[in-house]
């Protein structure tokens, strides 16, 4: 796992998206991707794991395994789920440092920011923020040791 860097995975995704020349294909792909999301366990779908600022519900959980953060998530809306699947693909299984230090520019490049509505892009910002916050928290914790 994670032989590629986050940057490389982002480039991979950008490449995948270049083949779609209309939004319909992009969205259908997101719907497809939604099925691949590593799903958060039902018992963790609590307010504590809910992300604010999304029009649809998004739950996100992070666990530390061997120095790497593993994300699981879910959403009641499918396109949201597809997007978070992309984020998880880029960020899950990484060290806190890599997550903190890598810019997520693929989102702009593949036109998610632009093509998705604001409500959605607000949600997107919240999701990324939450994932980075988890990374910061785990980093702080490991330094305490």
């Amino acid at each position: 796992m994670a032989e590629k860097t986050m940057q490389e995975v982002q480039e991979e995704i950008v490449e995948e998206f270049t083949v779609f020349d209309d939004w319909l294909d992009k969205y259908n792909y997101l719907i497809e991707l939604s099925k691949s999301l590593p799903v958060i366990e039902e018992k963790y779908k609590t307010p504590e794991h809910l992300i604010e600022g999304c029009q649809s519900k998004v739950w996100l959980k992070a666990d530390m395994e061997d120095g790497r953060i593993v994300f699981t998530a879910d959403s009641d809306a499918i396109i949201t789920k597809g997007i978070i699947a992309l984020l998880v693909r880029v960020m899950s299984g990484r060290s806190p440092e890599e997550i903190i230090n890598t810019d997520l520019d693929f989102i702009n490049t593949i036109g998610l920011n632009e093509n998705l509505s604001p409500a959605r892009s607000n949600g997107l910002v919240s999701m990324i923020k939450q994932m980075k916050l988890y990374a910061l928290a785990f980093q702080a914790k490991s330094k305490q040791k």
Partner: protein
Amino acid sequence: MALDIVKIRNDFPILKQTVHNKPFVYFDNAATTQKPVQVIDRMDKVYRETNSNIHRGVHYLSDLTTRHFEEARETIRKFINARYDHEIIFTSGTTGGINLVAFSFGEKYISRGDEIIISAIEHHANIVPWQMLCERKGASLKVIPLNSDGELLLEEYDRLFSSNTRLVAITHVANSIGTINPVREMIQTAHQKNVPVLIDGTQAVQHGKVDVQDLDADFYVFSGHKMYGPTGTGVIYGKESILEELPPYQTGGEMVDQVTFEKTTFNRLPFKFEAGTPNYTGVIGLAAAVRYIEETGLDEIVAREKELLEYGSRRLSEIDGLHLFGQAENKISILSFILDDIHPFDAGMIIDKYGIAVRTGNHCAQPFMELLGIRGTIRASMVFYNTREEIDRLCEAIEKVKEMFN
């Protein structure tokens, strides 16, 4: 006489564009309406030709703008048939207006143990200010329940009154599903018990004739931006006799009479409630919106919107797996629905891609959504400038949504 829809659509420049390479369809009118050139140009003219701060100015343009502002008050007065100009108070919007009444009425009349009646179908703007007031004063809220068609249960309403009831605050028309509440009768009921009534008219004034004297409303509040006027404007109608009694809400310039560091006395109505420089440009634009409505003809608007509602309801009800909420007999042209197993937000995103603006979510009516046991709806709210063809396009988009997610 039927409306000349070609002319009307020409009045609204924003409608003539494409969105995502599709002709733009605007079905988010309950959130805010579009503005006719008559309104846009009027405000333009203020800023290009007459702009000056009002009331205390000694110079020509200040005079002129003061006149235009006060004429706007008279225009609004006539529009809702208030008795006096000074019963019309300009605010920043419905939310600002209800907050004003909640504070001023609350300071004067609400104390521990008192009760305020609202309904289960209110917009947050007509819930939260009363909640806050109740919290501050130790009072409590009573909520009128609904039937499954989205109509208020009037017998229950009757039973909610007690000797502690101090105010009823209900919406004239529900923004989530369009129900027109029988506010005239509800006001009568309250008045028999000597309880004053505030009506949230935000979704009503633009969809049918409102006569505040005939309704006998004590307060009637609405927003300019939902009636073809500019953002940042709103109106409180209040009966003179009550307004006179209420303390001011916001304080500052314009609304004072004498100020010393020891004591301040307040100006007369309506100025007592209009602190600071008002949004006079907006208010003058709002008067232009009222004139536009009147020239178009409220009767004609009502007729056309009724036709759109009937057509839209019929077309949507033909779609498999679509559930329409709000089957009240009396309703405005709002189509609020869900699709089986599809999140409203997923649906809304795809509908948007067809150039169609609908709203999805709880429509600032979370308690009502919970009552329905749903997470939100897709809402297409139509007004007289919308067309049957646009409804057809919506139906097509819904079919695509179903294809994608099923």
